């Protein structure tokens, strides 16, 4: 019998994804991430526990969630017409409120799926992968947080001749990463800030492990570096000059760099998770605002702006 591997919760297996690797892809979103980037547009994937969305537009204030909650974590004021409030600290993730909600205003985030379920859904769009040069992207959250799972999924996908991409912050054990690299066809590898202190202060971990991993990974696999360009965090020439130096110093060049200008599409999710959004009111960054960084990196490596196509 094979040893039990630690299975993550899955928030979504999203078919027809066009921005996380080449061609038409299916993205497996793993729940749980060791970083806490304040701009994260998938905030539901930061915690590795079951989550809860509240869709205010669907709520009819019936109060059933209040009645059913064993932790008394939900309150609803009868008279002022306001919506029910959730005390997330008290929540024990029992999901009774979700089952009780008649309108779908409460939605469970994260699901326990078997490897078979995940595989079946991941390869459903095979005819589209072959035509478009697409495949499956393992994303999150952070796949390296569940190394056995990621390895197993990549291995199974390769048995089915699927192109596998792994989207990672690079923060994890080299031992894990190197094993996964045997099966992955491509890594989408984030670089966020070149200054380790600044990196640690904002996203919660230093960047030295990440940079070491990237140095080693380029020897084994095809890597596309992705840089989220965040106003007030890393959008300065010095940061990108240092990044260019770093990329130049690698043993083998990365395939390309993709600059991802800041966008605020994740804001709604923060509301639904009762989380504070740190970039409230911040407009989407325009292509022109990152052109100069592209120019800096271009001297070293092929650089594009994109990833997200919706403007």
């Amino acid at each position, binding site marked *: 019998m094979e040893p039990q591997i630690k299975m993550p919760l899955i*928030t*979504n297996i*999203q*078919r*027809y*994804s*066009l*921005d*996380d690797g080449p*061609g*038409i*892809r299916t*993205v497996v*979103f793993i729940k749980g991430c060791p970083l806490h980037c304040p701009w994260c*547009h*998938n905030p539901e994937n930061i915690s590795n526990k079951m989550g809860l969305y509240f869709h205010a537009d669907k709520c009819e204030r019936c109060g059933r969630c209040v009645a059913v909650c064993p932790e008394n974590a939900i309150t609803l004021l009868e008279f002022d017409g306001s919506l029910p409030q959730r005390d997330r600290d008290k929540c024990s993730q029992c999901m009774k409120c979700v089952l009780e909600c*008649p*309108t*779908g205003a409460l939605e469970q985030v994260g699901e326990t799926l078997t490897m078979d379920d995940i595989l079946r859904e991941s390869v*459903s*769009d095979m*005819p*589209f992968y072959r*035509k*478009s040069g*697409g495949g499956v992207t393992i*994303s999150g959250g952070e796949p390296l947080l569940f190394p056995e799972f990621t390895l197993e999924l990549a291995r199974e996908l390769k048995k089915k001749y699927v192109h596998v991409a792994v989207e990672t912050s690079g923060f994890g054990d080299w031992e894990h990463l190197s094993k996964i690299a045997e099966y992955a066809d491509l890594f989408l590898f984030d670089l966020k800030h070149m200054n380790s202190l600044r990196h640690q202060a904002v996203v919660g971990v230093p960047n030295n492990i990440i940079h070491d991993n990237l140095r080693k990974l380029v020897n084994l696999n095809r890597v596309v570096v992705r840089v989220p360009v965040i106003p007030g965090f890393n959008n300065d020439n010095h940061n990108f000059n240092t990044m260019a130096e770093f990329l130049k110093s690698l043993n083998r060049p990365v395939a390309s760099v993709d600059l991802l200008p800041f966008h605020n*599409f994740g804001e709604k999710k923060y509301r639904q998770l009762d989380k504070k959004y740190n970039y409230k009111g911040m407009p989407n960054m325009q292509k022109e605002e990152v052109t100069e960084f592209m120019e800096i990196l271009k001297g070293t490596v092929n650089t594009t702006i994109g990833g*997200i*196509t*919706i*403007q």
Partner: protein
Amino acid sequence: MPITERTKRLKARCRWKHTSAGEFVDETVRTGIERARLITESHKNTVGEPRVIRRARGLANILNNITIIIQEDELVVGDHIEHPEAIPLYPELSYFVTLDLVQSKYCPDEVKEEAMEICNYWEPYTLQRKGEAYYTEDELERAYQFSTVEGPAFVTGFNSIVPPYETVLEDGLQKRIELIQAKLDDALAQLREFPWDASKNLPLLEKINNWRAMIITDEAVIAWARRHARLARIIAENFETDQNRKKELMEISDICNRMPAEPAKGLRDAMQSKWFVFLVAHGLERYASGYAQLEDKLLYPYYKTSVIEKSFQPMTRDEAQELVECERLKVSEHGSCKDRGHREAFPGSNDLFILTLGGIKTDGSDACNDMTDIILDAALSIRTTEPSIAFRWHPKGRMETKKRVFDCIAAGLGYPSIKHEDVNYSQLLKWGATPEQARDWLLVLCMSPGVAGRRATQKCRTEGGGSLFVAKCFEIALYNGFDPTFSNTQQGPETGNAEDFDTFEKLWEAFAKQIQYGVSLAVKGKDIARTIEQHYLQIPFVSSIDDGCVETGKDASGLVELPNPWHNIILNTTASDSLVAMKKLIYDDKKYTMKELITALQANWQGYEDMRRDFLNVTKWGNDDPYADEITVKFYDMLADEFAKVTMYSGVAPMPLGQSVGHYITVGSKIGATPNGRLHGEAADDGGCSPYMGADKKGPTAVLKSVSKINHRKFKGMLLNQRLSAEQMRSEKGFDIWLDYMDTWYDLDLDHVQFNVASTKELMAAQEEPEKYPDLIVRVAGFSARFVDLSRYAQDTIIARTEQSFGVAQ
């Protein structure tokens, strides 16, 4: 933008005939009287003559006397009516339709009395009264509800046709007359032979009448075209002051003198000749919907002469595009006389004008040519909803043409709709077309393939067309054939009440019986109408341009050389999703009893909201889910099996064709609450095998996977709506991704796909400020419409279709 100042002006003053909720959007639209007056006059004057001769003289009387029009700026001239704002009446077809129009606000006061007199004069002679004679009162009542089936063709008067333009362009009508005269002379000579042989000779009598009628109409058409020639010259010589326009008018005069009497020589010839044929076949001889033609193939030889070789009617490529723009505006202005039910069924449109482009030639090579590109360029530059375009997709199709198809779709025109070359080609082989014939296929209406060519007149509405409303049949199957939500009458056979169906199979069986009853009721109406048409509503002009009719002496309304029958299945997904939900919650999980469900449905789910949520949450068609898909595929197989039991006029079984027209709105409103969670009166599913609006949660690839499980080759056609994100389509990689999607679509062996590309934001903005969005076009069903011409309700159903966007990292 229109390519020239001329077409800009023509577009600005185009008298659109779009309807919304059954009424014309443009309030100046009115009924004309001349056609009705002239055919009545002739009917009275020809008493006692053979019926087909009376039909021919009726058309001749119209052509000889109807007011003819040449409008400013026009390059393609001629109308089927005395004024461009008017629509004609066809009092010989349906009494109800004529009465409805005459009594409506569209009939001007000054002719109302005369129109009513004409309407009443014709009543006993109408197709309608003749057809009704073969029905019981009860049956008629059921057929007239327009709820389980569309009203019979003899009541709606709705018909369509594909005339063989090829013969007119290649031969000219004078040559046709010679051919027919030769047949006539031979026949008369044979009658003089001895010894007398009754078996050989007597069938000639009817043929002789038919041939004589054909010659009468061809001569009348030539004379009518030449009236345009004289008028153009009169304007040029007496009234026109602009020298350029004077020259144009003289050229028009020359063209109308020769067309359609002689073979076409240049592109202007061909366009004008084709237009004259269209007017007579679709608007003057009788009303017939459609604008079906392989236009790129038809026009290419003349394009070559005029644009490439410049040896006759020389012109630039831009001038050719301008000519196509002019044609599109003529079609947009062409007013048809549909019955109210069909006006409601095509919201935002005028009539079903659909031409076909692309495909594979008989020699196996790609059929796309420069004319294909020009037609697509003109569609994009002039931006009219009509005529719509179908594109025959195959791997060999040239990329520059596919890019143009993409550009039209990405711009949001809603067309071309795309049809699978091999699925459609193979289908025509089934009824005996040779491989060469089958290569020349086109869409005869919005969805169905048929053979085009010199002897391939398609009689669509009595051979194909017509609707069976599957979701309504499903609903009455729950109530012993009774319709408790719209008519309160017994609408089908008694097949038991839902509470009695203790197994899923029993429910299935009752439903299948209602389907069988419905399809038989509908097909019977078509066959009866067709039989009557041959005796009273012959179409000698169309017959005269069909090689088969000329050869055999038969009228085109009756001749069948290649059967091509189908009947539309409409509102399918509402029924199939309901079956899935019932199977799951009542028969498998036993969470609810049938009695509980029926109680909730009759309460329109009110007071049963939790239960409704459960039924809504059962997995739906379009998500590549094995449970829902298995039942749905069986459902389609059942429909195909029931259709296969029927035999039609043309000797074979009709195939089902899945689509929606605008019926999903109008007939949807006649259906009570359904087990898929839908409320009473809500729109039903909007197209063929498309997922219910908003029920496809897993994106376009999952939709295609689900849909590919249906065996499309058992169906005459299978409509699929996809709404793609405007941002995605218009982004840098839009074309590449779409090509990958289309290539996979082809591999999956699907019959059809069409796209709506407009963002929800854009559509909602157009609802707020319609005056700013006159050119925003959307795909409704097998046709496109200007969004602002649609009723709010219809607009909302379009917005509700799931917008399939890029998977932004969720």
